[in-house]
């Protein structure tokens, strides 16, 4: 939704008044090439990226596994905040910190702790299995609070949801795909080839900063 002229004017004023706030965004490569190439190198550091996967069986779990495995290949730790304790590890992930939450409130508290800790380069908040009723109760300010935290410590947060939810996300990506029954016996790279990853929203730096 485009901002009103007054808002745009205010943002412009703030950008001129506080030029030091303007920083070049660094990227945190996930190691998973379809996502990294889409984003020009990786997830933006110090901001939230939202991955929207509307279908129930769309390949979201594949994305999750691919990112975790790619991070492992680069010996990078990753935190997975599992909003509904639904993750099924397909193999041993020695560098994965898996936080098995039972509900949204628990997951948000865990995310807050992990982001404030700032030890792990990438945190993934998976809300794909949580009900919309639960997710709608999250106050918008929560996402801005998370954004401020990772802005401070240079962390990276990737959220996975079924619908647009994270108001402070700098980039929103959509994965529209519907798994077929035959995919259960297909090689994973073959399934990934059919994925349609698309950036649906990219907030401009200034808009994002003064949002």
């Amino acid at each position, binding site marked *: 939704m485009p901002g009103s002229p007054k808002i745009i004017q205010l943002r412009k004023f703030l950008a001129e008044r506080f030029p030091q706030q303007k920083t070049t965004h660094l990227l945190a490569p996930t190691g998973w090439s379809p996502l990294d190439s889409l984003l020009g190198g990786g997830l933006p550091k110090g901001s939230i990226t939202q991955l929207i*996967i509307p*279908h*129930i*069986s*769309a*390949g*979201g*779990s*594949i994305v*999750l*596994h691919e990112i975790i495995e790619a991070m*492992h*290949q*680069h*010996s*990078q*730790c990753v935190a997975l905040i599992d909003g509904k*304790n*639904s*993750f*099924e*590890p*397909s*193999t*041993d*992930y*020695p*560098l*994965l*910190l*898996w*936080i*098995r*939450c*039972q509900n949204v409130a*628990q997951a948000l*508290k*865990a995310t807050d*702790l*992990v982001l*404030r*800790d*700032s*030890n*792990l*380069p990438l945190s993934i908040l998976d809300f*794909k*299995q949580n009900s919309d009723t639960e997710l709608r109760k999250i106050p918008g300010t929560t996402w801005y609070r998370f954004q401020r935290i990772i802005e401070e410590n240079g962390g990276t947060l990737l959220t996975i949801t079924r619908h647009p939810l994270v108001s402070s996300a700098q980039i929103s990506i959509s994965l529209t795909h*519907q*798994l077929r*029954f035959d*995919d*259960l*016996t*297909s*090689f*994973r*790279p073959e*399934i990934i080839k059919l994925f349609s990853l698309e950036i649906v929203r990219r907030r401009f730096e200034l808009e994002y900063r003064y949002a």
Partner: protein
Amino acid sequence: MPKIGTSCFVVVYIPFYFLQCARQKRLLQRAGNDDVSSKQLSLDVTVEDHYSDLFSSPVFEETCADIPAALLDDDGIHVIELNLAAEEAGIRPGASTSQAIARAPELVLYTRALSHERQLQDVLLQLAYSYSPFIENSAPGVCTIDVTKTRNQQSGLRKLLAQLRAVGLKAQAGIGPNPEIALQAAKIADPVLEISHDCNLLQSLPLESLDPSPFLLDILKSWGVRTLGALTRLPRDEIGQRLGLEGLSLWDRAGGRSTKVLQFVQPSETFEESIDFEQRLETLEPLLFILRRFLERLSLRIESVYLLIAELHLVLTLENGEKIVRSLQIPAPTRDVEVLYGTAVQYLETLQTTAPVTSFHLEIKPSKPDGHQFDLFQGKLRDPNRFFQTLARLAALVGTEGVGIPQQINTHRPDSLRIQTPEFDWSWHSVKNTSRPKIGPGLRRYRPGIIASVELDKDKPVLVQSNLISGKILEARGPWNLSGNWWDRARWEIREWDVVLEDGSIYRLAQDLSQWEVVGVYD
């Protein structure tokens, strides 16, 4: 300053040692017993600020020095040590309590703090050991150091005195060509004094500075001998004939000709602090204050031996006799008081006791600084201690089984996982590159499975009904029969089906004995 090669000794002397120990214990107990909450409300200061002020305020110290104070013997009847203000008030060692109070009504009386004395003597030796390895435990509150081969005594000594000051001990140091002269210098130093054989200062000291026996002191005073100089002006042989070996020893010491050989000791390798509270503790704040004081002191001691703290061992004794013992591991050994304090506070904040606390004991386990060779491309943790504190908080939020590294158990039973707590070197774990082909999408599992009712047609599911999903099954594949532990009571047997519903979503159903469950969704 003596040249290198000539004998040189340093004596670190803590004046009124027993009194200082007793006073320090009293201050800690006061901190534990004060009504903190009321002060917080009225003064609007934090608890720690309040107590830090209590200890470090120069006004408080001056006031303490001005107020007569005396230490009583174990029976609490006689005075055994006095501060200057008490001496000026006319109180003498050996006076009874009532006599002392009669001389100075404002007299503050202390009883001996034996455990505190032992702990602070350990502190003195440990800190002195960092200055030179040749140390002698000469007396309570006195440590003699052989510094013949050491340069820059003065600067090192001032640092040592500052460290003692940091642990709450006011000390002074003397440098001399033999231990006796160094001790005499230490007694009159402010805070460091160096004197030589022919120093007039030594000659003017009173005889009492050598602690002669009362019998000998009376004889010498009856002769009109009151200073060391007056004693050494008498012929040594004549003193020997009249006063015997004790007199000769005193004459030698007065003349700075003592040939005492130091008995070197190794300082204790235990690092512990403890306190018994006069009044029981019912709130956490006073305990936290004492914890911080203990950690500051222990950190300083451990620094002097170039080690790090790897474990905190806490013992809380409760009023009902129960003991709470807890060892807290420090993932990345450190001397940082804030990190150690944070780790201990995190535990204490969650601790619930059945009775008030009556004593607190803290011991630390030292460890050598460990070197790690980091791989250039490995993502190590920025702050392991903070990370492990976060882990503890996460475990408190989701349970210990709710956070960690997933590890698969060697079984065919679905959803068999073990959650392992990350270790210190977790972040630089080597990852094996597996070339196993990756097939199919992953499963998002419902834990626990959702009970469903499934209609079969020719042994194939055709309709499913549950709280989560309901509808006609378009296609089903299976059954995939799984079983295990047939040899014991934990026998299990599951039949799994993969099904597609009308909306295109793919689920996994499982039949365990006669019950159907929706166990997950493919995504």
